[in-house]
């Protein structure tokens, strides 16, 4: 065996300098100070659960299509499709999250670590719906897509899961997670930055608190 350096995980989105390794991932250490922030959240663990739409797995997870909820472990469970759930958890915890996924006997269920297969971006700030409105035909008004809404749609002509996941005290800070297949991650990130450029969007580095 050759002498091989320990692998560093990389997001498809190039981190601006300066960078550091956090939880095994190369991330930017830039910090945003403005009101509108975009963060590459790809290091989050992503687990896909597939099962019957209305079976035991569905009731165990308890999250309907189009909604998202945090479970007692802090994992964000997203009803991302019919009979399909996306679990978002802290970096490096995919195996634990997968292990916790319900597997009732007799039901056909598939649990897949998806971390390496997807890009994840978090857009935060009161103006984030305005930015999204440049790229996405969905109505981001509170009445239509309140906090915890989740949907898959076209963002910048790319298939993207959009999950409204407001942050902060009382969840008062409007925030969206955008999740797409990995090879288009840089494209999606660039499109969001372009859409936010006249709203003074700033790039924010990934931190543990991004979960």
């Amino acid at each position: 065996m050759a002498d091989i350096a320990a692998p560093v995980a990389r997001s498809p989105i190039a981190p601006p300098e300066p960078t550091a390794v956090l939880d095994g991932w190369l991330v930017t250490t830039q910090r945003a100070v403005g009101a509108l922030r975009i963060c590459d959240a790809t290091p989050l663990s992503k687990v896909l659960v597939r099962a019957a739409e209305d079976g035991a797995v569905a009731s165990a997870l308890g999250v309907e299509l189009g909604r998202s909820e945090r479970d007692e472990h802090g994992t964000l469970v997203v009803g991302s499709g019919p009979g399909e759930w996306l679990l978002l958890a802290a970096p490096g915890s995919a195996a634990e999250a997968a292990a916790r996924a319900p597997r009732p006997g007799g039901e056909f269920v598939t649990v897949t670590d998806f971390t390496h297969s997807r890009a994840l971006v978090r857009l935060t700030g009161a103006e984030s719906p305005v930015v999204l409105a440049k790229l996405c035909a969905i109505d981001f008004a509170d009445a239509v897509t309140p906090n915890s809404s989740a949907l898959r749609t076209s963002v910048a002509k790319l298939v993207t899961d959009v999950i409204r996941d407001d942050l902060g005290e009382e969840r008062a800070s409007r925030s969206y997670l955008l999740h797409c297949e990995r090879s288009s991650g840089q494209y999606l990130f660039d499109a969001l930055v372009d859409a936010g450029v006249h709203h003074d969007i700033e790039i924010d580095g990934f931190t543990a608190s991004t979960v």
Partner: protein
Amino acid sequence: MILLPCPWCGPRNVSEFRYVGEPRRRPDVATTTPQQWRAYLYNHTNAAGWVREQWFHRTGCRQYFGAERHTITDEVRRTWRPEQAPAGAEPLLGVTDRAATTEAGPDAGGDVL
């Protein structure tokens, strides 16, 4: 931009969907004649009025579903999941592009392996 009510996701712009075509019953492979099989491949009612057809929610839930659309007004009066087809409707067929298509557009993958 017409709205298509996806049975799972609700109303979305039609650009999120791929039009599949009029559903037709797949003939029994063991007994089919060339005439039957090619009618299945190629023929359409192509009606000017209410038609039953099949769509695929490409940028959403990625499910196939049925719809009843008026081909003159483009009004969609109902949609259904494959297992909920209304009486008399042909079952939805997964045989989406029954005949192969070679059309290449920006969204096609290109020409290399």
